[in-house]
Every structure is written in structure tokens, then in C-alpha cells.
């Protein structure tokens, strides 16, 4: 069993590390839920519900408060033809299969008005979208210039439609038919189940949103430019003078370090220690061949010693500063200036990747670096806590052995492997 204060500190560190991991996981889960949902089938906002069959009249009334433009009508015409063809193809298939003959003749007539419904997806009732834009700014899905996209859509759509129909039949009523209590089976023309994969490149952000977003980026750009403009020179001097006066008026001799600065200093010194140690190991490992190299080695080692002395001195200065007051309650020092705010350019920062593989590599490396730095920190903490325990128990012998074994595995192999201890019995 470990002593109480050691236990407390170890538990605090380890639980902190576990909580940090859990927090990351929670955030990831949130984003994962969103992404998974987006890649299933869903309805873009403002589109007519893709239930094309029963009650098409009531649905149609909700959908198209205005009259479609002539171009849209032409489009509808073409698409209707494509759909009718698709239905004919399916008729042939379903005749061979389930044989729901009765609804079929109706399906022809149902198809036409029904297709106007899903087609609202494509040819936006531009009228419809105008009308709703005057209402609350709801996102509305519009297509791009139909003339441009249309020739490609036509051959695609029938293919899409039939495959979707098949898919919807095989996967069951599912997606497009959720509001339909009595959906006619098989003869159902394609519920226009929207999937990002097939229709993703037809999406367009709502106009109100686009306007707000562009204004936002313009204003942020303005913020960074006003900082660097020349007229800010007088303001900068005024601010500096004010700070100076504050310092003088407070009666302190020098500027106090903020907590964040102090932490940065400590980290700097930690980095210094590591670099100095590396250098020392290089020098000690090298075998000097002539007296010049011996001299160099000696002078370097003594120089390193002096630098370590300076670092220790600086550390003691920081300690003295800190004596003026302990760290405040529950106030993480970095909370007030998280990263990204030191960068003066508040404009858009992009990270460009070219393939899924690259993105995954980047993300995995990112996590690996975070994990390794946590491991290094924990290793130091464990060393500081556990090594003294082992050395204290050494002379006692047997009671310390399980502890030695556990400590060795934790410190030297990250808990993955264990040493073996054999009792050395004298023979005979």
C-alpha cells in the first residue's frame, strides 16, 4: 500500500488524465452523431416531404404556394417523362415479381402529380422559396442553374430512380414513407429519399445565411486590418502610456508576471533542461581522440553546468514571485488566453487535405502527440512518487518485491511487461 499523500497525488494526476480523455471522447461522439446522420438519408429543409403518393393534393398545397416558372414546367415535363419510363420498367419487373396488379393502373396517374412533389426538390419552386424567404429565414434547398445541370440529370435520374426504388423496396418502407399510414406497396414511385451521396452537390445554402456569413468574414478581416493601420499608432502610444502610469501608480518596482507567463517560463525551463541533458549525453558518449577534443568536451560540459545553474536561479526567482500568493481557487491559468488568440490575423485559417487517408493520418498523429506528451508527464510524476518508495524499502527485502516488480513494469515498460524474480536458493 502506498502512503496517503503519495496516493492522493497519484490519484489526482491519473484521474485528471482520464477525465481529459473522456472530455475529448464526448466531443468526438457529438460530432460523430452529426456526421453519421448526415450520411444517411434525410430531408433538406424546405423541400416538400418526399412522400409522393397518398394525399398528394394536400401535400402539394403546402409545397407550392406560387406558380412554377415556365422553365420549371419544362423541366417537370422532361422529368415526368423519365419517371414514366421508369415506372414502365418497374411494371415489367413487378409483374414478374409480387404481382400487385391492382394499384398499377392507378400508379400511372399517381405518378404524374406525385412527381411534381419530389421534383420540387430539384426545380425549386423558386416561387416557393421566395415566399418562404419573406417568412422566417428557413434554409431552403435550391438547385443550381437547371439549364446547366439538366442534361446530365436526365439520364442519371432514371437510373437513380430505379435503383432507389429497388433499394427502397428492398429496405422496406423506411425513409420516404414515414408519414404515410397506408402506403401502397411496390407500385410506389420513388420516394425521393435524399442522400448526400447522390444529391449532395445540388445543395445550396440559404441566401440569408450566405449574406450573414460573408458579412462576418468581411468584418473579421476589417478587425485585423484596423489593428495594423497607421492611425492606430497614436492609440498604441496612449495605451502604453496608460499602462506605464498604472505600474508607477501602484508602487511596485517591476511588472508582475501573470500566471500564464509564469507557466510559460516553467515550460521553457523544462525544455531547456531536456536540451541540456541531450547535449550532455552526446558529449559524455563521444570518445575524444586528441587533446583538442578533450578540451572541447571539458569546456562544453562546464558551460552546460553554468547554464543549468542559471536555469535554477531563474526558477528560484519565479518561486519568490509566486510566494506572494498561491494559485487561485479553481482557476486554470490557461483559461484566459487559450491558443489561437495570440495570432493577430483573425481571418480564415484553412487546413487543406487531399484525401481521406491524409486526413486520418493527420488526426491520428495529432492524438499520438497529445498522448505521448501526457505519457511523458505521467512518467515523470510516477518517477517522482514511486522511486523513493522502492529505495526506501530496498533493505527490507521480501515485502518490497511485489512493489518493485509493479514499479518496474509501470516505469520502464508503460505497464506492458513484467520482470521476473527468482528466489536464489542455495543448493545443498
Amino acid at each position, binding site marked *: 500500500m502506498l502512503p496517503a499523500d503519495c496516493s492522493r497525488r497519484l490519484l489526482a494526476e491519473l484521474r485528471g488524465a482520464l477525465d481529459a480523455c473522456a472530455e475529448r471522447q464526448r466531443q468526438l461522439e457529438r460530432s460523430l452523431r452529426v456526421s453519421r446522420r448526415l450520411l444517411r438519408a434525410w430531408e433538406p429543409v424546405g423541400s416538400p416531404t418526399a412522400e409522393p403518393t397518398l394525399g398528394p393534393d394536400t401535400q402539394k398545397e403546402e409545397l407550392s404556394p406560387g406558380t412554377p416558372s415556365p422553365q420549371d414546367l419544362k423541366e417537370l415535363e422532361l422529368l415526368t417523362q423519365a419517371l414514366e419510363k421508369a415506372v414502365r420498367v418497374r411494371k415489367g419487373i413487378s409483374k414478374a415479381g409480387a404481382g400487385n396488379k391492382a394499384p398499377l393502373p392507378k400508379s400511372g396517374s399517381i405518378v404524374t402529380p406525385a412527381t411534381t412533389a419530389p421534383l420540387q426538390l430539384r426545380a425549386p419552386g423558386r416561387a416557393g422559396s421566395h415566399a418562404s424567404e419573406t417568412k422566417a429565414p428557413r434554409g431552403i434547398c435550391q438547385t443550381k442553374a437547371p439549364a446547366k445541370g439538366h442534361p446530365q440529370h436526365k439520364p442519371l435520374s432514371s437510373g437513380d430512380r430505379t435503383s432507389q426504388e429497388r433499394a427502397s423496396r428492398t429496405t422496406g418502407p423506411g425513409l420516404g414513407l414515414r408519414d404515410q399510414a397506408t402506403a401502397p406497396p411496390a407500385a410506389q414511385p420513388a420516394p425521393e429519399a435524399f442522400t448526400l451521396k447522390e444529391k449532395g452537390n445540388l445543395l445550396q445554402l440559404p441566401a440569408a445565411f450566405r449574406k450573414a456569413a460573408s458579412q462576418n468574414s468581411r468584418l473579421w478581416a476589417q478587425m485585423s486590418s484596423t489593428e495594423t493601420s497607421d492611425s492606430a499608432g497614436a492609440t498604441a502610444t496612449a495605451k502604453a502610456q496608460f499602462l506605464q502610469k498604472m505600474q508607477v501608480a501602484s508602487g511596485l518596482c517591476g511588472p508582475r508576471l501573470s500566471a500564464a507567463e509564469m507557466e510559460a517560463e516553467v515550460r521553457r525551463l523544462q525544455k531547456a533542461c531536456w536540451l541540456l541533458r541531450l547535449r550532455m549525453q552526446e558529449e559524455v558518449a563521444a570518445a575524444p581522440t586528441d587533446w583538442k577534443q578533450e578540451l572541447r568536451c571539458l569546456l562544453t560540459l562546464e558551460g552546460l553546468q553554468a547554464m543549468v545553474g542559471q536555469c535554477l536561479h531563474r526558477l528560484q526567482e519565479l518561486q519568490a514571485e509566486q510566494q506572494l500568493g498561491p494559485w487561485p481557487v479553481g482557476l486554470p491559468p490557461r483559461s484566459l488566453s487559450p491558443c489561437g488568440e495570440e495570432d493577430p490575423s483573425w481571418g480564415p485559417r484553412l487546413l*487543406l487535405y487531399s484525401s481521406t487517408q491524409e486526413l486520418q493520418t493527420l488526426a491520428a498523429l495529432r492524438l499520438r502527440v497529445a498522448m505521448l506528451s501526457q505519457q511523458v508527464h505521467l512518467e515523470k510524476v510516477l518517477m517522482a512518487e514511486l522511486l523513493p518508495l522502492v529505495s526506501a524499502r530496498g533493505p527490507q527485502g521480501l515485502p518490497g518485491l511485489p512493489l518493485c516488480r509493479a514499479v518496474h513494469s509501470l516505469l520502464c515498460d508503460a505497464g506492458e511487461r513484467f520482470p521476473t524474480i527468482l528466489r536464489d536458493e542455495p543448493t545443498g
Partner: protein
Amino acid sequence: MGRRRRGVDRTPGAGSGALPEAIAALSRALSAGPSPETFRRAKFDRPEAAPALWQLLFRVLSPTTQAGAKASQGPEAQVRFVKAALRCQGYPRPALAQLPEDGSQGSRELLLALAWLLARGPLLEQLLARTRVRLGDEMTVCECEDVAYDGASVGLPALCVEPNLHVDIRHVQWLMGKLRLRWRNLVSSQQEQCALLSKVHLYTRGCHSERSLGHLSATETELLRDPDGSRQLLQALEQENARLEAAVQWRRRELIFWQWMDTVLDSCPTQAPGAAPQPMFLPRITDRGPRQWGLVAGELQALQEQLQAAARPRRAAWEAQVRGRSQDPAWSTTWRAVRQAVDLELVALQGAWDRSGTPAQPHGPHRLVRSESGALAGRGLWAAEAIRALRSKEACLEVALRQLQGQCRQELARLVGTLSGFIWIPPPGR
């Protein structure tokens, strides 16, 4: 008092409304800050201006995640928090610490504190960036957020541990294993998320109104799916735009404010020089800072001892050698040359940690943009470069970890060697 003309505070060369306008812009940029009248009262240290300013400082200084929780604790807790946070930032004036905790006084001191925060750094930009509406799928490549994650959980766990708890080493092993498992889960979730995001970007190619971005982000696609979310996002964007406009206006009129603040500072009674700053006796719940300090101090001292142990015998050997040679003139020039070379090297080494941070490293969250053609070169950070930088960091960290583990191995072998009657067989490999 109410009939006193605002012109009394008029600084030469400014229009009569310029200062209130500047302050109004500042308040709008801070999102619902106190009115210019409150500021004016604060200059004369009127008590009625104090509560509004305490609340403003509380809002400005608390991190967004904790603001809600702390706000419910009442005005005394807010006052204590503001005092602690300003101390943390290095606020120089001791008068702040002496203000009563019921939040009824000290409006002039608070006004000075606010001005101090504004003067020291880009406070407005930082506040706006903290709550900035993120439209893209963001990823950070620097490590600053790691510290934020670790720091966020620092205060609480220690509270849950009873003071006299003894822990078995096996519990420690179990916790370490649990940590390893959690990291593994994290990595696999992250890989899935990357794959999904990549698909979303791929499928929405060509949709974005901004040609330079090229495709929608998951956030933007989500708002096409979810009308409520879309409304909220739009509202948030519009609010942010309003604050940004106010901040731009403030920037244009700042100078008048600073001239006025000079007069405020002058109207303060002068501090007695040499008055000892009162330390704040707050119970130390988390000792992360001092622990860090302790670790570094221990490392440096150990290093110094090792250097001494390495240098002393070499110096002795050298002294013995040199006795015969000091007469040779050529030798002394060589000696000086070697000395200079060593000094230069050491100075360069010191530069490696003296440099304030790594300037080349990009900070902060970046918006992910899929771009196969390379058409967006120059507009952002390339994933390949970020990967390179991360790999070198990974290598450094691995070296550091191996070195620490090697140290432990040696130390344990030494300690265990003192036990007699046992054979110690370390695990194979590595």
C-alpha cells in the same frame, strides 16, 4: 449631479458626444455592457456604478464553460473570482484586493482594471474569438488545446479524494491500463469521424458560394437538414456581426477613451509607495502549478549533479595534462579558438529555448478544406506540412520517453541489486 454637463469630461479636440459614443460602442462590442453613464459615475467612484462593473469584469474574465455555473453562486463569489483572476493576470494595483466583497464599492478601481485589460492585449478580439461562430469543420494542429484539456479537469479530481486514502499499486496499474484503453477508443472514433467528414466534403463538392472553399462543411450541411439549428446559427451569426461592427467603431474612436482614462487615473488618490501588497490567502485546492515547478526543479538539480560528476574528472585529467604544455604559444591560440567555438555553440543552444515559442507554428483551429487539385495553394496550411511537423514532434517525444524509461531501468537495477538472495530478470526485448 444629473444636471452636470457631460462636457466636464470633454477632452480638448473631441466632439461633445465622441466619448459617450466610444463607450457605447465598447459596451455593444462587449455584448450588453454598462451604459456610458455608468462609466462616468465610475470615474467619480460612485457606489451605484460598482455592481454593473463587477458583473462586467466577471463576464469578461471567466471562461465560457464555467461562466454559467459560477454566475449562480452569487455576487460575493463573483467578486472573489474577479479579484483572483486579475491577480492571476498580474494586475499591479493592490487597491483592488482591498475592496469589500459585497460588491458595493470600488467602481473607479474596476474601471481602471477594465482599461488595464483593454490596454494590455487584444481583449475584444479575444472575447469575440472565444465565442466565434465556427462554420467549418475545425481541427487544431498545435498542442495548446491539450493544456486546456488537462487544465480543465485539474481543480475537481483532487476534491474527490479522501485525505487518508491508501492506494494499492495495483489500482495505479489498473488506472494506467484504463487510460491506455481510452486513448485507443479515442483514436478509432477519430478515424471514423475523419472518414465521415471526408465523405461529406466529397459529396458536396461545388456547392459553396465561396469558390475558394469549394464544398460545404458538415456544420453547414447540418443546418440544411435541421431548421431549428439553422435558425439558431443564423441568429448567432447576426449577433456576432453586430458585435463586430461595434468593435470596429470602437477601434476608430478609442483614442478619446484613453485620454479620458488618463484623467481617471489622475483623479485617484496616490498609492503610498512601498506599501506591501496583501497576499490573498486562498485555500490551495489544486497544486498543479507548484507541482510542475517542483518537477522541473528536481530535474535541473539532478542534471547539475550529473554534469558535475562528468566534468570533474575531466578537469582533473586536463589540469594534469596541461602542466607540461602551457609554455607553448601555438597551444594557447588553439585553446582560445576552441573556447570561442564552444561559447558560440552554447549560445546557439540557449537560443533554442530562449526564443519565445515557435513562431512558425500555426495556432488555433483551422477549417478543413478538401482540395485535391492544389488550386488553393498559399491560402492555408497544407496537411502534408502539418504531418511532417507532427512527425518530428512525435519523434522528439518518443526519444524523451525512452530516455526516461532508460533512466528508470538503471535506477531500479541499482536498487534491486542491493537485495540479496534474488535473481532479477528484466523483461526481454526493446
